[in-house]
């Protein structure tokens, strides 16, 4: 069928409009990347606007010489790895029994869990609880209070329910217990949803700063996001450059370049994982929305 004139106009408008939207989204990201690789003078004067000018890795050198950043990076890695392991295990523990139609009391337990989406004690009672448990300023506080997310239990349960029940039944007839069924039949079939969970949770851990802000006091325990906050938002960059013998103006310039480099370093794992992230995240949203 031939396109009518109005349809063609619509199509052209559509392509152009989406191109502009994509440009608006990507330009700030490219700018940050280029600025981190340029001589800061060009950034401040406005000469650098798209590609790096006077290419240099100075800023990255300073970032990797900074103890706080390295330490924060290691802390975040620790919180992310152990936190995600606990998250995924807990999610499976909750989702598998709740996916079984022959579990007595299933409806009640599900309601017990979903209830917490709508009603929560809020910040202060939770803080007092954590304090009374002696978890303030410990490694555990970054992991245990968020051991599992209700929404993810629902996603995983929906996935488990889509596995044909006959598989489990035939294993039962062969004399396999529930542990065995979960371990050797259900889990091997669940790789896609486990991957989605690992990504959901680990991105969450990597990006979060709230837990740390509320519950941690020692700088050595801070995750990267809190260190970033000090550098980018509170402007605590003095000790990072004072050690160098640069003039005041040069120091100001280094701070500028350093901020852009820090932004890139903080997102490095995300940038590298982005192709996977996008694919599996979209999948996860779909599984979730099927239910909703």
């Amino acid at each position, binding site marked *: 069928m031939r396109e009518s004139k*109005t*349809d063609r106009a*619509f*199509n052209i408008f*559509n*392509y152009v*409009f*989406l191109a502009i*939207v*994509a440009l608006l*989204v*990507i330009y*700030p*990201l490219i*700018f*940050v990347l280029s600025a981190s690789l340029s001589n800061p003078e060009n950034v*401040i004067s*406005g000469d650098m606007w798209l590609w790096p000018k006077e290419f240099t890795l100075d800023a990255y050198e300073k970032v990797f010489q900074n103890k706080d950043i390295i330490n924060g990076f290691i802390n975040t890695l620790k919180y992310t790895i152990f936190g995600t392991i606990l998250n995924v295990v*807990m999610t499976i*523990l909750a989702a*598998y*029994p709740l996916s*079984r139609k*022959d579990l*007595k009391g299933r409806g009640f337990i599900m309601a*017990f*869990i979903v209830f*917490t989406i*709508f009603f*929560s*004690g809020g*910040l*202060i*009672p*939770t*803080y*007092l*609880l954590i304090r009374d448990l002696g978890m303030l300023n410990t490694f555990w506080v970054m992991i245990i209070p968020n*051991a*599992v997310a209700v929404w993810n239990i629902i996603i995983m349960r929906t996935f488990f329910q889509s596995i044909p029940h006959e598989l489990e039944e035939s294993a039962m007839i062969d004399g396999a217990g*529930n542990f065995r069924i979960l371990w050797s039949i259900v889990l091997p079939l669940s790789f896609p949803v486990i991957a989605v969970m690992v990504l959901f949770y680990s*991105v969450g851990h990597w*990006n979060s*700063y*709230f837990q740390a802000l509320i519950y941690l006091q020692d700088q050595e325990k801070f995750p990267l996001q809190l260190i*970033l*906050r000090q550098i*980018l*938002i509170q402007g605590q960059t003095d000790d990072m450059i004072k050690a160098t013998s640069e003039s005041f103006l040069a120091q100001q310039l280094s701070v500028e370049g350093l*901020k852009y480099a820090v*932004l890139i370093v*903080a*997102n490095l794992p995300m940038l590298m994982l*982005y192709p996977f992230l*996008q694919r599996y*995240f*979209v999948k996860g*949203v*779909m599984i979730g929305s099927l239910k*909703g």
Partner: protein
Amino acid sequence: MTNLSKDVGYVENIKKSREKKSFEKHQKEKKNILVSWKKAFRKNWELYVLLTPVILYFLIFHYFPLYGLQIAFKDFIATKGITGSPWVGFKHFERFFDSYYFWRLIKNTLGIGIFTLAVSFPIPIILALMLNEIKSLRYKKFVQTVIYAPHFLSTVVVVGMLLLFLKTDGLVNQIIQLFGGSPISFITEPAWFKSLYVFSDVWQTMGWSSIIYIAALAAVDPAQHEAAMIDGASKFQRIIHINIPAIMPTIVILFILNAGSVMAVGFEKVFLMQNDLNMSTSDVISTFVYRSGILEAQYSFSAAVGLFNSLINFIMLIMVNQIAKKVNETSLW
């Protein structure tokens, strides 16, 4: 006569035996419930073992704080604990309602919430409708890959970028000066706070939020479009009359969820964008709770403020759901 009494006696006997039977049946049923639970437990005890840590987690970290919420009606004294502290009724609520900050907090929280809803909610829908009309798969994929990306940035990074771009000698002000304007101090100017908050939110979330609508649009029956095309409907007409009605249920459900949380403005981003100079427009209930509770240790007072906020959120959700039910016959429950 005797026959009759016999008959009556017979009937009574039947009645009695029936009652006895039903009583026995009842007893049996009671027993059956127990037996069936026992049986269920014996058969699936492993499943209950698996669930135990999860149930303990929810009891401790979600239900116990609910119990602890009673400190909103008490004067919490650490040495006496939650249960032992004296009741004071609505004292903390009254103090909050009478405080100088009350109306400012309500105004800011509601203002940011409504502004976000008005801008951040429709844009992903428009985006999805437009992406759906792109025929070139590669172009579509490219645009999607780009606009999903900011979703993966942390709040600290997004606010950090915002500050770098918007400072007086930053990128945006350089552009303004290029066109002959004079630099604006976006970050410290209270009037700019809401717009910066909302539009950076749009930048970060519009792509990601559009996924769910794109999925809903993929389910539209192509036969409908073919029929409409034969009738001479233009692309635009087909979007209005086929695509939008098709995703209407999704739109309504998400609208209820979003509208229900207009007073639940998140802490993370507001807190990072806040500074001493823009407090008059940037202070919201969640940041106020953080300041008075965590920093100033006024536990009971800030628990009361938090409770007040969750109550309002819950009422909003129910109200919006009720309205949607009446108007559209789609609702959450």
